[in-house]
């Protein structure tokens, strides 16, 4: 959960030199343009880059890492399905050949289509198994790396405190945003 309280410290104009005469009132639709544009100044001095501290970029990174993690999990599921499928592609032809053998007096019938299909399926099984194992390994690595990255980025985000100076029509201010 992200809590982002914004603390606004404003010094009243009484503490500053007399203000210039008020500018003519801006039309209501210009208020948005007059609002201060806050520049994020990350805490941490030179070591901290502004892009790292920008919570939006960090959020985007977290989302990307989470997507990587979820995609990795999905790939693991596909890989496991491949392994199970590959195992079935061995088990079922083996059973089929045993059945054909028992039906044919202890030998496999020559030129039998079911026999040929069973052998072809059996021999394709290691390929399916190999792909399944490969996907499971790649998916597990992706899921692990993604999850670790999400944890790390979330941990970093918790510690984020950003300050921004603000210049308002009535004075100056300091905006502080903390995430816990």
């Amino acid at each position, binding site marked *: 959960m992200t809590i982002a309280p914004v603390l606004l410290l404003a010094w009243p104009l009484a503490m500053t030199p007399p203000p210039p005469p008020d500018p003519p009132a801006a039309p209501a639709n210009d208020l948005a343009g007059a609002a201060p544009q806050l520049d994020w100044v990350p805490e941490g001095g030179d070591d901290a880059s502004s892009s790292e501290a920008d919570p939006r970029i960090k959020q985007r990174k977290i989302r990307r890492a989470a997507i990587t993690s979820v995609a990795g999990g999905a790939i693991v599921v596909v890989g496991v399905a491949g392994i199970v499928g590959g195992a079935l592609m061995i088990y079922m032809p*083996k059973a089929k050949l045993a059945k054909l053998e028992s039906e044919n*007096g202890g030998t*496999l019938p*020559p030129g039998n289509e079911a026999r*040929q299909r069973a052998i072809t399926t059996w021999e394709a099984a290691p390929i399916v198994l*190999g*792909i399944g194992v490969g996907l499971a390994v790649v998916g597990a690595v992706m899921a692990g790396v993604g999850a670790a990255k999400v944890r790390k980025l979330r941990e970093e985000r918790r510690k984020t405190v950003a300050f921004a100076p603000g210049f308002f029509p009535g004075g100056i201010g300091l905006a502080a945003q903390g995430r816990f």
Partner: protein
Amino acid sequence: MRTLLRIACALAIAAGFACDASEETDGEPCSVDDDCSRKQSCLRTDAERGLGLPGVCSTKSDCIHGQQLGCACTPEVYEADCIIPALPLYEGYPEMECDATTLVCVVPTVDEEETEEG
């Protein structure tokens, strides 16, 4: 890819499965190579083909010496004198003998059998 296949094979063997069907088809009757595993071929002699008999699945490249009709034999060697066929369980595979002249497994002719009996 080859490494992955090896890992998959190791897993399959660990799970109690063979990686290919060669054990199941070894020594089984066949009429074409598709009847055998990828590592094997269907060894079928012309004599067998002529009589409509099956060949045998084997990793060897030539017919099984002294055990297949039309294949070379050695009368002095028991396992290679055509008495034991490569397909002992296949019904309809004829009895053979090693022709002393040609040293090839042949089906004994009726005259020869009668002569032997007489």
